[in-house]
């Protein structure tokens, strides 16, 4: 981990006794993008504000390039920040907004840099516009340009796409990604949407209740989740209760057992939580869990079916004409993960 540029060391912060961030340590390599992913209230925004210096941690440190910046006020920290509602200064135009952080440079240098970052976010020619007359997507890009203009050591983004129309999001996301790559700036951003985290982040840190659940690439989070929370929060999944049986199998119901990855240290007969993704489940004519189709949601060529068997409920993805609501079916699963039963 020699190349980590931004380092969070055991950061802890509580508000009135409620833990918002609990002992989180993270390393972000130079020039990479880290996504902080979690549901609302998971502490991700507090973490971003701790990084920016708007909040002081109760304990722990923030290091940049090996030097401790924890005590530095935001003004001296040289971290760029893009706010959720952009926080563009409404009385200044695009150019004045972008130039706001460029104080110590000559007039020519300033104009040059403003043009440079505006072109980076594909907003050349907008310098004289009033920010209040811009669309949401354009405002977002100006906010990114403004944060990048003073060449920040670290760029922080708070829910950068949450204020945009769903139709606009995908395009903006691609453009933002390319701007970040071009700028080559070490970036941390906060989101509660998995899709956004996957598309923008080189690595993703999943937070829950102020605690760090897992850090890794999108693929490793999806395919090798380390907790029930990560398994269900990242991607769709059904959870069932099961019993560990011999030979790497888990028993879901009377005479139904599926092949599973089970924690090695658990003994036979131990209760486990079974997590199964919809694409790993299929209808079968052979042996399987018998139940009835209670719901069918079309998404196009394929559909999500909900199959209920007693008090169990499993979601699966299959071609639209595989079954109809009310049918009695049997299902089987190819790849399931098990976790220690949480008491």
């Amino acid at each position, binding site marked *: 981990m020699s190349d980590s540029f931004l380092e969070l060391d055991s950061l802890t912060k509580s508000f009135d006794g409620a833990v918002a961030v609990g002992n989180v340590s993270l390393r972000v390599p130079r020039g990479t993008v880290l996504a902080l992913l979690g549901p609302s209230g998971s502490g991700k925004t507090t973490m971003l504000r701790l990084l*920016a*210096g*708007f909040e002081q941690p109760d304990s722990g440190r923030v290091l940049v390039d090996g030097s401790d910046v924890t005590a530095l*006020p*935001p*003004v*001296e*920290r*040289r*971290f*760029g*920040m893009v*706010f*959720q*509602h952009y*926080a*563009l*200064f*409404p*009385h200044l135009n695009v150019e004045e907004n972008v130039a*706001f*952080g460029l*104080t110590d440079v000559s007039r020519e240098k300033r104009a040059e840099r403003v043009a440079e970052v505006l072109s980076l976010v594909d907003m050349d020619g907008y310098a004289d516009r009033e920010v209040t007359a811009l669309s949401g997507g354009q405002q977002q890009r100006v906010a990114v340009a*403004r*944060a990048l203009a*003073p060449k920040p050591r670290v760029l*922080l983004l708070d829910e950068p796409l949450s204020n945009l129309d769903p139709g606009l999001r995908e395009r903006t996301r691609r453009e933002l990604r390319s701007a970040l790559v071009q700028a080559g700036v070490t970036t941390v951003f906060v989101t509660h949407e998995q899709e956004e985290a996957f598309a923008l982040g080189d690595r993703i840190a999943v937070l829950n209740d102020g605690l760090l659940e897992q850090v890794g690439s999108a693929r490793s989070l999806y395919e090798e989740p380390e907790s029930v929370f990560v398994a269900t929060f990242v991607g769709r999944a059904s959870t069932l209760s099961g019993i560990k049986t011999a030979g790497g199998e888990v028993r879901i119901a009377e005479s139904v057992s599926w092949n599973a990855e089970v924690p090695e240290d658990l003994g036979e007969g131990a209760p486990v939580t079974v997590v199964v993704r919809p694409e790993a489940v299929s209808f079968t004519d052979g042996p399987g869990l018998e139940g009835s189709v209670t719901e069918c949601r079309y998404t196009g060529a394929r559909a999500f079916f909900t199959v209920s068997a007693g008090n169990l409920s499993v979601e699966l993805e299959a071609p639209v004409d595989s079954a109809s609501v009310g049918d009695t079916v049997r299902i089987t699963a190819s790849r399931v993960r098990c976790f220690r039963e949480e008491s």
Partner: protein
Amino acid sequence: MTPKRPRGLLLTILLSWMVVFPIALVVVGAVRGDAGWTLEYVATFARESREWGALWNSIWISVASVLLAGSIGVPLAFVFERLEFPGRRLPGALVALPAVLPPLVGVIAFMFLYGESGFVAHALRAVLNLDGDPWRLRGWGAILLVHAYSMYVYFYLFARAGLAKVDSSMIEAAHSLGHDRWGTLRRVTLPLLWPQIGAAALLTFMTALGSFSAPYVFGGGFRVMTTQIVASKLNGDLAMSLVETSALACVALAGLVLFRRTQTQRSVAAVGKGIPPAAHSLSMPLARWGAAVVGWGFAVLLLLPHLTLLVVSFVPVGTWTTQAIPPEYTLANYGTLVSDPVRLRPLLNSLWMAGAATIAAVTLALWVGRTVVQRRARLRNVIETLTTVPWAVPGTVLAIALATAFSVRAPWFGRWVLVGTAVILPLAYMIRNIPIVCGSVVAGFKQLDPSLDEAAASLGSSRWRTIRRITVPLLRPAILAGGALAFATALGDFVTSVVLYTYDTRPISIEILSALREFDIGVAAAYGVVLMSISAVAMAVGTKR
């Protein structure tokens, strides 16, 4: 780290020193003689019918002013908000004008119009061939007339604002439940307006209680507390003036508490989306024109004093005696204001003192806003309460309090000799304007997106640069609105000036009175017009979006 002093402590001390400390000194002074604590003065106050009579007069005049002003202002609000008639917009705006007329100017305008030697009296004498004065504009009747004229505006503005917020669906619901128009008005609309009417009543009560110009000019032998206090002070009966001042302050406080009690806690106007019903188009031509006549008639009637003032300001000295209308007109009165150094001085005095007071009040308000809203200081509730205190303190009370506190040198107790210096009047104007300016600026702060401040910080902007480049420009409408109102009020101030002025610092209002005493009515009116114009311009600037 050293133990931090709580945020906002310095501001709390400063505000207390300005708004609480002087008044506390007055109360102490009322029960303390040369020989220590005594109730002697209080006993005298209670014994003398002249004294408690003046207090009683103040109270009933204020209550009567509330009732009178309300019975003009509320119906007028309905006329202009709910009835559609030809050209309703212009008079609707015009009738709000008395709000920008300084009290003393309103009083002399009234005198020129309805006084025994005013236009109406002159006209009546000419028409009816009378010898003596048809009436004398004196006593409580005259005071009430002026109060009703200048204070209906509060009811009018508040009730109009309230009516604009009453959701039309509530009116429709009442109709669909079988209530006719009067039933709906009585059972739905008026109760919904109650918070606004209550607020206007409180404002009117406080203004009437502190009113000084009208009783001073028209009172004659009829004394109210404010004139009684100033009389005692001028007669050198300092102890008695302190008791009187304390008594008036107590009534003001009691009034405030009592009115707050009657206000319901529910915010009724907040229910619903607040789409006001469209103005009611009167279908019958007779009713339409009737409403137009009432609306325009009121507008003209209420504007007459302003027009009178303008006409009189063109009348040369000593030319208007018994004629129905002045026989000659000249611009010389305005020339005198500029060319005569003795006449020019008060104008300059008022301008710089009001300007300095406004700048100081705005600076203080920015400090308060930053401490209370942006830094969320622990003392913020205390600070916000302190900024509203001067509002509940009649001007005379504040003036006596400042005269008491700052005529003694005791630096360790926060007392310096400021009375007689050029500092005392701007200080008094500033304190009087703290509630207006702070109210406006703090409200502006509360609307600022807090992340703008953080955005500036993350871009490396220092605190002062952020305040200069971001906070102040964004607060400009709020600063202008509060500052303009404060400037206009300070410029026309009479009630505190009359206690605290010296010859060198005499403001316009004092000079108006001395011009009147010299029967130089043209110059007095010209001052009035100048005051009125500057106030109107300030208000126009302040309310511009």
